[in-house]
């Protein structure tokens, strides 16, 4: 198991170990990023099975490209760029569209007093309305919103996934938010 004098490895050390051919180190990287990689692929390709295959492809390509990973760079955006590219390749043929859904069961609130049924119902309606409008947006708008708000990626990671300069991320997100507001019937002016 990859350890240095009994202490757990930090990410850069996992990467270096993986580059040297340490299988357990690469598997640790997969374990650490499999969820964000899979969800990113799902948002791009729009199908659970295709996302699974795209995420696999992405990790295999990342494994093959580890030798060119720049030491000291952020690993997550580098990986997500590769996964998103793999997903885009599959999206061209699959031409599917992910329909984001709400959880069927939400965790019961702990600690605070339970809200009334009326409040819960209203909150549910508002969530469903918001999600329906998001699902109705064009692919690029929905993707940038989902990356920002549902995967909580940072700007560098969003740019990597969308394959655009970092400066473009803000403008795309801003335009998508305007269209989301319009879909919700809200005033889109910045005031």
């Amino acid at each position: 198991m990859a350890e240095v004098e009994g202490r757990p490895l930090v990410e850069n050390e996992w990467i270096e170990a993986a580059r040297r051919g340490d299988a357990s180190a690469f598997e640790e990287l997969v374990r650490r990023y499999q969820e964000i990689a899979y969800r990113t692929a799902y948002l791009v390709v729009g199908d659970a099975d295709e996302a699974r295959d795209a995420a696999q492809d992405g990790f295999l390509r990342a494994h093959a490209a580890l030798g060119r990973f720049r030491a000291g760079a952020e690993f997550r955006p580098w990986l997500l760029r590769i996964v998103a590219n793999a997903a885009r390749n599959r999206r061209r043929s699959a031409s599917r569209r992910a329909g984001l859904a709400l959880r069927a069961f939400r965790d019961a609130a702990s600690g605070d007093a339970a809200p009334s049924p009326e409040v819960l119902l209203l909150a549910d309606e508002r969530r469903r309305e918001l999600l329906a409008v998001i699902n109705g947006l064009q692919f690029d708008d929905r993707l940038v919103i989902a990356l920002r708000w549902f995967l909580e990626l940072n700007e560098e990671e969003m740019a990597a996934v969308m394959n655009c300069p970092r400066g473009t991320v803000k403008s795309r997100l801003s335009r998508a938010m305007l269209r989301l507001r319009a879909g919700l019937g809200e005033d889109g002016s910045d005031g």
Partner: protein
Amino acid sequence: MADVRNGLEARLAELSGEIAFPTTPPLVALVRARLAQPEHGFGLRRPLSRSLALVLVATLLLAGIAAAFGIGLGGLRLVFGPASFSPAPSLVVGPGLGAPTTLDAARGDVTFALRVPQLPGLGEPDLVYLADPPAGGAVTFLYGERAGFPAEPASGIGLIVTQFRADIGPDVFEKLINSGVSVVSATVHGGPAWWVAGGDHFFFYRDAQGVEVDSTLRLASATLIWEEGGVTHRVEGAPSLADAVRVAESLE
């Protein structure tokens, strides 16, 4: 209307925890199994070299391959076979590259996210050309001699980087490849790429009527071509595949 924006952002943040993504599959096991397959070509226990050893071995022996054989790439087709025309004897920069422009102007004139190599020492391109058509525009950066990128003597050009939309239609650009040329599969940011080197190979634009536009014809040096994010790229003039990949992966 800051309140409206903040309110919507708060709603999105709240919604975040409610999104039901599909259950993440057991990727550790799946990836482990894929890496263990003999046809994968390399195993985890094998030390990883920096670049070339990880290039997928796919050198195509072109001698004897029928002229009809080709590899498709967005907006670009590799055609294997003898040239039906006489190539220019050296790098030629002709009007077919489009009109001279500036980097900033080109950014606003194309319908894709134009990216520029950020490799240290390369700096900004010396010349920028914009061609339109093809639809969406095609931008070519020309660099004079740079450290590590010696200039081709006849033209003074050290490096050429071209970008155009991958969905401009079939066969708009063609790379004609004669015998003696090796086409090696490579990767850029983990995605597929092709390294075309050796022998004679030519890159030219074919107009809407299918006519070869010889003003863009260039006797190409080794070229890396790949598609990324709906944009087809070519990097020409790098001394080696590793150098070309460094240029390619520095695009921002």
